[in-house]
């Protein structure tokens, strides 16, 4: 295999991993845009969704039916989290909100352990084995499948936000809740919708990554760190940034693992931490973020 093919091969794998980070990062960014909250529990909610999918399949449902049902359950679950956990502390100081989402993290993690135990569960791979060969680069169906599903989700979100009136209303609430309310918009409901969407997008990352990582309550811990790196890199208030950031982090991680000897497989988790650190030092608002919230 030539050096170029090898590089392309690693890059493709990186994009596959990055697609998973991108969808969890997008969930983080959606909530941050809507509420200014950094939701530390996002990964755990995704993990919970993945258990729902697992449970459905364990009771005989085929994957491609279990997936939409899981996404629907996640959507409702996300709305409930907003209504029950977040609404009571709306407008509280930042530290309070951080503590609430960290508390939710711990609660969901423990609850999943209690219900499903901490033993590792096999999660079926929805995509066929093998793959295709593109100019010497072999691309697995699973990698293509992950990229395809994430791309479809992003496309749907784009259509929702840019081309429907619900999307317009959601963007208005994110931009200026006070004026939105005075335009007759029920801001609370829109925030519920935002949390529901974020939980759905996060669930996609959990379900896609589960066959690779095996399902257990701590499965999303590492993914969350990559997603944080992705969101920081792209800019915490930019959905496009989250996606680009996710892909870049995935590629950086894979390349560093393959080419930088000291990194190898064991130190890969250091890559997102380095990215977070460097971005915060060099360009804190991220690639696509705005330096400061403008108030004309």
């Amino acid at each position, binding site marked *: 295999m030539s050096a170029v093919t090898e590089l392309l091969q690693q890059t493709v794998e990186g994009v596959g991993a990055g697609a998973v980070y991108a969808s969890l990062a997008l969930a983080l960014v959606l909530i941050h845009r809507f509420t200014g909250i950094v939701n530390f529990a996002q990964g755990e909610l995704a993990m919970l969704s993945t258990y729902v999918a697992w449970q459905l399949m364990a009771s005989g449902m085929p994957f491609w039916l279990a997936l939409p049902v899981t996404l629907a359950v996640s959507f409702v679950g996300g709305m409930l989290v907003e209504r029950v956990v977040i609404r009571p502390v709306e407008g509280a100081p930042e530290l309070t909100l951080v503590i609430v989402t960290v508390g939710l993290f711990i609660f969901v993690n423990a609850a999943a352990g209690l219900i499903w135990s901490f033993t590792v569960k096999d999660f079926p791979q929805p995509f066929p084995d093998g793959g295709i060969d593109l100019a010497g680069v072999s691309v697995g169906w699973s990698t293509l499948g992950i990229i395809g599903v994430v791309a479809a989700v992003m496309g749907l979100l784009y259509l929702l936000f840019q081309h429907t*009136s619900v999307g317009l*209303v959601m963007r*208005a609430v994110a931009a200026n809740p006070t004026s939105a309310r*005075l335009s*007759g918009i029920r801001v609370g409901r829109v925030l519920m919708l935002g949390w529901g969407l974020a939980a759905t997008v996060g669930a996609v990352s959990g379900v896609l990554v589960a066959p690779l990582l095996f399902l257990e309550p701590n499965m999303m811990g590492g993914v969350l760190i990559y997603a944080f790196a992705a969101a920081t890199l792209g800019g915490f208030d930019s959905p496009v940034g989250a996606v680009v950031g996710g892909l870049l982090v995935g590629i950086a991680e894979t390349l560093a693992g393959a080419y930088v000897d000291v990194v190898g497989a064991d130190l890969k988790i250091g890559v997102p931490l380095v990215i977070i650190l460097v971005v915060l030092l060099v360009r804190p608002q991220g690639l696509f973020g705005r330096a400061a919230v403008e*108030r004309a």
Partner: protein
Amino acid sequence: MLTVDGITVRFGGITALDGVAFAVEAGSAVGLIGPNGAGKTTLFNCLTRRCTPDAGTVRYEGEDLLGLAPHAVARRGIARTFQNLGLFPRLTVRENVMVGAHTRGRAGHLAAALRLPRVRQEEARLRDQADELLRRLDLSDVADRPASGLPFGTLKRVELARALAVRPRLLLLDEPVNGLSHGEVDDFADLVRAIRQDFDLTLVVVEHHMGFVMGLCDRVVCLDFGRKIAEGPPEQVQRDPAVIEAYLGVAA
């Protein structure tokens, strides 16, 4: 149309409004003046349910306004502009106006999400109405630009368009011409007069620019330290010794 009675608002030790009472007749334009910190914006906040008074009543077309949820105020035909603009910065100028118009959209959220053809129609209608309003306020050229980054004078008109999109019958303007140049103030005054006619509006205007208030308003209410110190026709209030003292007291 609007009757404010005995409104009192306290923030900790500060009494921002202290038993303020006045009435606004349908079709009239009432100026609300007073030195900085007099409580004018706070009064607007009470009328739009951003703030709940500690005492007093507000009746709007016979209904208890203070019993409404904030999002329901728009549906009753009340809109406002903000002293420091209430725009949606990332949205385009057209979208800013479409959000306002959304209240009057008939397709509900769920229908909007599910029934695409009907939504297309709805979207097209919202868009047409927004474009009409943009033409009226001479904003067509910037319709597709994001609101952030436009010149201040333009933003003031976008802010007016955003409020008008709700199709209000009662429009509350908070310092609509602050920060505008002399020429711009005159243009804006002409615009507001024309809009008032066209849309059959009742106005309450907070403004420090006396020329603007005198030229536009039928009545003027003057607040100072949360109390009403004068009310009447503009020329009379302008000559009122209590009003002159309130302003000079601040200037000194």
